[in-house]
């Protein structure tokens, strides 16, 4: 490491602030409330500042370089989003403020719900779920609730293609249903024969990503949707890849019943670290009453253009319930609203067009250099294989690690699972041609190095603060506590009174 742990620069008695003299008599604190095991670093303000700024310099981020991480849409997050989210009226609004006192915030949420629903051809949307995974869970719980509401108790299975995000089967399991895996055909589309064989009256629905995790648009998607509907199931769309679709096709019009959106992917709210997110959910006529709540409704319309309508919070009549305290992560709503407001409908269409163009540009340039297991026009991302004819012992991981030496974040590795040595690449619309050309040149150079000097790849990265990590040891010798565990346990043992 190039930066010490903050504990290593600690020295006894050093503080960042000097507290004023105590103006009241000191009292003895109860002994059983005093702890000695709070191992806090003792450092000055300047040390804290340098420590964390230096650490931040060791990171790679979209603000420092290309981040072509497939299925994650690491687009640039415009800083105007942050300005809007910091407006005092939004930032300091208390979640317990009454509806009358939060009309501006409710108007923003109402507009965001309406735009998300309109963009994807749905009747309504809820922006309560805290993240994509929670949005998925909401969607599947809604499907479950729909069948139960119709007294159809035998529908317990959800079909999931083998190319799906791992969250899909996990969601099904969390919702108390059973995931049934469907194979893909050789083009990466759903195998219709396998689908037909799997469909019966125990199927509650199907979860599918469009475009698929292979980056391609399933050419038979209408057949898939029709077949599932005919068998009485509902269709869930995983909206992780919405960046390819805006203004191009509306999932609701294709026949999907429910979908989630990742505001941190498509709508440029910050990614990261499990921080606050928003996995909004859109639903058609069949499912709109089951949306998680509360959602914002227009309580009183107005004809007078100088007068604002009145907004209020409401639980949909058959709602699956709450998923999150208050109204979800409002700060994310402001950022996504700002992004959509600035682009407008035409602008969002352009975003998707450029995202698809950029991915296809890079794909076309790398054809013949890397194997393309699904060799057709792609959406906003494409998958290639990190394993070459005639170069044994070089893996996708080695190529990814070597990319770091060129200041580029590795693409997604080993996903989708059905492609051996997968590298899933998504340049996003925010990169210019020069950046894409540089990426292509670097990828070609690495392909050549794999043949000429494979050791250079196997020992990469060479220029990063942390070199190749020992992933086997990291997985087998877990040390997730900053203090040695026996020591910690000992001090936690109750004193025995």
């Amino acid at each position, binding site marked *: 490491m190039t930066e010490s742990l903050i504990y290593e620069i600690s020295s006894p008695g050093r503080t960042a602030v000097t507290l004023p003299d105590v103006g009241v008599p000191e009292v003895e604190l109860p002994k059983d409330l005093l702890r000695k095991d709070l191992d806090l670093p003792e450092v000055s303000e300047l040390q804290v500042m340098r420590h964390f700024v230096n650490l931040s310099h060791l990171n790679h981020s979209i603000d420092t370089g290309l981040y072509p991480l497939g299925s994650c849409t690491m687009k640039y997050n415009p800083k105007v989003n942050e300005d809007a989210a910091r407006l005092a009226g939004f930032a300091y609004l208390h979640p317990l403020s009454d509806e009358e006192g939060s009309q501006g915030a409710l108007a923003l949420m109402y507009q965001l719900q309406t735009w998300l629903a309109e963009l994807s051809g749905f009747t309504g949307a809820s922006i309560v779920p805290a993240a994509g995974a929670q949005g998925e869970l909401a969607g599947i719980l809604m499907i479950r609730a729909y069948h139960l509401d119709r007294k159809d108790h035998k529908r317990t299975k959800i079909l999931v293609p083998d190319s799906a995000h791992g969250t899909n089967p996990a969601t099904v399991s969390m919702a108390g249903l059973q995931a049934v895996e469907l194979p893909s055909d050789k083009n990466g589309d759903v195998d219709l024969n396998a689908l037909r064989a799997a469909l019966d009256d125990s199927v509650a629905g199907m979860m599918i990503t469009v475009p698929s995790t292979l980056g391609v648009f399933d050419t038979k998607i209408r057949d898939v949707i029709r077949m599932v509907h005919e068998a009485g199931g509902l269709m869930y769309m995983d909206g992780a890849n919405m960046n390819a679709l805006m203004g191009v096709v509306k999932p609701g019009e294709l026949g999907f019943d429910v979908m989630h959106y990742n505001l941190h992917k498509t709508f440029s709210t910050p990614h990261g670290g499990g921080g606050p997110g928003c996995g909004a959910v859109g639903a058609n006529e069949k499912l709109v009453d089951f949306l998680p709540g509360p959602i914002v409704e227009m309580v009183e319309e107005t004809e007078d253009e100088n007068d604002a309508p009145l907004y209020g919070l409401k639980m949909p009549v058959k709602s699956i319930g709450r998923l999150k305290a208050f109204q979800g992560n409002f700060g994310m709503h402001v950022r996504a609203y700002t992004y959509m407001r600035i682009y407008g409908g035409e602008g969002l269409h352009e975003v998707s067009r450029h995202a698809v163009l950029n991915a296809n540009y890079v794909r076309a340039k790398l054809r013949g250099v890397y194997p393309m297991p699904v060799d057709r026009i792609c959406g906003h991302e494409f998958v290639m294989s990190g394993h070459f004819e005639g170069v044994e012992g070089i893996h996708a991981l080695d190529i990814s690690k070597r990319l770091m030496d060129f200041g580029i974040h590795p693409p997604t590795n*080993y996903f989708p*699972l059905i492609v051996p040595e997968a590298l899933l690449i998504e340049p996003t619309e925010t990169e210019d041609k020069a950046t894409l050309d540089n990426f292509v040149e670097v990828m070609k150079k690495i392909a050549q190095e794999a043949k000429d000097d494979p050791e250079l790849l196997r020992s990469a990265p060479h220029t990063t603060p942390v070199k190749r990590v020992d992933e*086997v040891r990291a997985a087998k010798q877990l040390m997730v506590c900053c203090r040695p565990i026996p020591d910690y346990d000992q001090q936690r043992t109750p004193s025995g009174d």
Partner: protein
Amino acid sequence: MSSQTPSELKYARTDEYLRLEGENATIGISDFAQEQLNDIVFVELPEVGAHVAQGEPFGAVESVKAASDLLMPVGGTVTEVNSQLSDEPELLNTSPYDKGWIVKIKVDDPSEANALMDAAAYIEYCKTR
């Protein structure tokens, strides 16, 4: 590919092997499977006495690349598990057919093994992937 594929074993499409000896059998994962998975770091084993039907999961392996279910090549009752794998999951990489066996079972119906591939068919199957 230079994977070992012993001819006396049977193989499932999901890469488990079956060493059938009368009504008892030993189950593990093939050399091809361990190569694809890369360094294995964790193995989840079933309880002795558990009954698992053909094609149902009896455990899981986790490598630095992925986690995969282990599926029963034939139905049976677990009589022994290789508990050494808890401390040394890498035995699956270094010795898949010998020290890296996973479970021993009492087989329900040996004829279920007819649905599995022999070594020659498995080698061909691996080439297509």
